[in-house]
C-alpha cells in the first residue's frame, strides 16, 4: 500500500508529537527533582527510634539473682 508523502509526513509528525507529550510530564518531574536536589527513589533508612531500654533487674533475671 502506497502512502502519499503528505499523509506520511502527517503520520510521522503525529507519532513524534505524541511521544513528546507522553514523555513531557516524566521529563519535567526529573528536571524539578534535579533543581530541588530531590531523590525520592532513594529509600530513606529507617530511623532508629529513641527507645531507652530499661535494664533493671526484673528485665533480665526476673529479680531472682539478687
Amino acid at each position: 500500500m502506497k502512502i502519499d508523502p503528505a499523509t506520511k509526513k502527517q503520520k510521522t509528525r503525529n507519532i513524534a508529537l505524541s511521544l513528546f507529550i507522553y514523555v513531557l510530564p516524566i521529563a519535567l518531574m526529573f528536571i524539578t527533582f534535579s533543581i530541588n536536589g530531590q531523590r525520592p527513589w532513594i529509600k530513606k533508612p529507617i530511623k532508629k527510634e529513641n527507645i531507652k531500654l530499661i535494664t533493671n533487674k526484673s528485665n533480665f533475671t526476673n529479680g531472682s539473682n539478687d
Partner: protein
Amino acid sequence: MGATIEFIRKIIENLNGYGFPVLLLFIGVLEFSFGLYKGKWPKNERWVDIACFIVVPLIVRPAFGLFGLKVLPALFPAYKNLFGWVPVLWGVAIIAVADDLTQYWYHRLHHQIPWLWRFHRTHHSASYMGMAMANRQNLIYTIFFSQVYLTIALVYLGLGVPAIIVGVIKGAITTLAHSSIPWDKPFYKYKVLHPIAWVLERTISTPATHHAHHASSTDDGIGYYKGNFGNMFFLWDIIFGTALITRQYPKAYGISHYRGDQWYAQLLWPIFKSKVEGSELAAAGPMVRIERRQRTKPRAG
C-alpha cells in the same frame, strides 16, 4: 488538616467505586425530569442502552481485574510498586497524559480506519445525548480499551492513588460532556464568563464540543463527527488539528442511515449480526456505508 485530607480521600475512593453509577443515575433522573428524552428513546434503543449498561461492566470489570491482579504479577513480579516513590501530583500528570492521549488515538483510529469503525458504531447510533447513551458501547470495543490496560499497568507500578484521582476527574468530565444538560451554556451567555469559556473549551470536553462529535451531519457547521475526539482533554484535538470549537448544539444526533439494529448485534458484533438489511452490522453489510450525498463513514478525516 489530617481529618480534611482523610475526608477528601474517602470522597475520592467512594466516587471511584460506586460513585459513578450513582452520578449517572442522578443526572439521568434530572434529564428525565426535564423531559429531555421525550419521544427520543424508542424501545429498541432502550434495550441497547440497558444491555450495554448492565452487560459491559459485568464482563469488562472482571477482565480488567484479572489483568491487574493476575496477569501482571505473573509476568512482572519484580516490578510491583517499582515507581511507588513518584509524588502524587506528578503521578496525576503522568497518568492523565498517558490515559487520555492513548484514548484520543484509540477513539480517533476507530473513526478513521474503516474496519475499526463498526466496533465504535454502537456509541454513535443513538439519536440523543444523555446518561442513557453515555456507556453505550460494543463489548469488544470496551474490552480492548487500550488506555485502561496502560493505566492498570501504571497502577501496578505504584501509581494507584494518582490513577484514582485522574479516574474521578476524567469520569466527571466525560459524563458531563455526554449529558443532555448543557452546563456550559452560561459560560457562553454571560460576557463576564467568556474568558473562562475560552479556556474551558480548549482544555476539556464540553457538552457543546462533544455533542458536535455526536451530530448526525456536518452540514450546519456545528456538527463535527470528523473530529473532537478528546475524552477528558480537548487539548489533543487542538494539538493534532482535529478540533472544531462551537458554542451551539447540533439539531440532530446519531447516524443518518441508522435503522435500529438489534441490541444483541450492537452489543456483540461481530459475534451477532444485525437483521437490518444494508446495515454496517448486517452479515452482508458494508464495512462503511456510503450515503448518496456524502461519505458518512468513517466519520473522520
